[in-house]
């Protein structure tokens, strides 16, 4: 006999059955990246925590985990930023205003916005990793007095692949938010830094005793960044990473996203570095 999984009492059905939401706006961010704004007003808004993701279903094609990249304090718009890489995300990046997408979620753990209250926030993003961190930045700027310094460091390939460039400039223009950008290679008229994200950390002084770091980007960039942060004195308990693994159910049932003894969908994606630093070094995981 096989015991079938049933949702615990009180668990909402939307974790299993996709809700149909209409695409209200399509914003082309970069040649291979679009932001889809789904209208969640008919269901009374979509509440989520910074760092959480949804399973987005393009009917007839497939379902993929995508982080929510919108503003948690404006839950009327449900926003995702998607890079076209494969079978599902390529056609998903072609959807038009008025098309319908299935949404299951929100799933997963959140950036530790409450634990970080009273501390300095060091937000380090690489490439598309800025999308899952953008809700944390919105949250911090909306509750600005709850935090000390807010530092956003962003690394990407080249000046023409900077995601949310206008917003990065807007944040940089605020007197209460420090923003710096680094790219791997640039024409000589580029005004930002050229080099890897860990090198950018050396340009900033921060107090390791009162800083919480939130890091999201390609795993290799996160590994190097987390190591550089610990070298600068930040305790592992103060460093949080967003771990991505291939997912199917998104809710801790199928085991697809197993990451050592944890499931990335339910114990993550946001995890504390002291809990996972050993796992990140095991290549078979």
């Amino acid at each position, binding site marked *: 006999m096989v015991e079938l999984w049933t949702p615990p009492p009180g668990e909402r059905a939307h974790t299993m059955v996709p809700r149909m939401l209409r695409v209200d706006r399509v914003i082309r961010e970069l040649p291979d990246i679009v932001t889809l704004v789904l209208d969640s007003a008919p269901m009374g808004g979509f509440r989520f925590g910074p760092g959480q993701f949804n399973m987005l279903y393009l009917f007839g094609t497939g379902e993929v985990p995508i982080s929510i990249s919108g503003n948690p304090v404006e839950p009327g718009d449900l926003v995702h930023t998607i890079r076209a890489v494969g079978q599902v995300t390529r056609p998903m990046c072609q959807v038009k205003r008025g098309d319908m997408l299935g949404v299951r979620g929100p799933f997963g753990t959140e950036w530790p916005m409450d634990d970080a209250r009273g501390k300095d926030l060091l937000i380090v993003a690489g490439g598309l990793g800025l999308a899952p961190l953008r809700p944390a930045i919105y949250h911090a700027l909306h509750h600005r007095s709850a935090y000390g310094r807010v530092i956003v460091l962003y690394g990407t*390939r080249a000046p023409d692949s900077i995601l949310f460039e206008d917003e990065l400039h807007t944040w940089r223009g605020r007197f209460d938010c420090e923003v710096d950008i680094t790219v791997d290679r640039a024409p000589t008229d580029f005004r930002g*830094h050229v080099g890897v994200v860990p090198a950018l950390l050396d340009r900033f002084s921060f107090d390791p005793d009162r800083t919480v770091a939130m890091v999201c980007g390609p795993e290799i960039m996160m590994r190097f960044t987390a190591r550089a942060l610990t070298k600068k004195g930040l305790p592992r308990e103060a460093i949080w990473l967003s771990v991505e693994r291939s997912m199917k159910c998104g809710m801790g049932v199928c085991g697809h996203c197993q990451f050592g003894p944890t499931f990335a969908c339910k114990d993550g994606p946001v995890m504390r570095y002291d809990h996972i630093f050993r796992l990140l070094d095991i290549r078979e995981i």
Partner: protein
Amino acid sequence: MENLERSLAEHPFLKDLSSEHVKLLVGCAKNVRYAAGEILLREGEDESQFFLIRQGTIAMEAYRPGKTPVCVETLGAGDVLGVSWVLEDDGVRAGMASTLDARARESVLAFVLDGECLRKKMSADDKLGHALSRQLLSSVYQRLARLRLQSLDVYG
């Protein structure tokens, strides 16, 4: 002199050196400022001077005939520039010239240490020689690790 010694000792590259060793280096050092756009080191030039950057950004640029120049790295406060002076031996060039242009992107403050002067002090005092060589190796190794990561094109 005392001020130069104190501010030299505060530079990250020298901060692990003993105060006696820093004192020995003062005679090789000058406090300099470069205006935005000025070249600190040009491709093909001997690296006969050692720069300890204190403030400002330096772009390491490669010029490619027929193509737009490209910036492959920026350096800033705490970084060092031009290390192959250490490889010269009794006036015999190690054949290492600068491989890129180093251009001040904005006003740059730096200490410039004369390579020949440094080599003499390093030969005269083994402990200083060892301490400086260690620092140089560590700095070059860190730069190499960063450039390796940079060459991986991790952002996909």
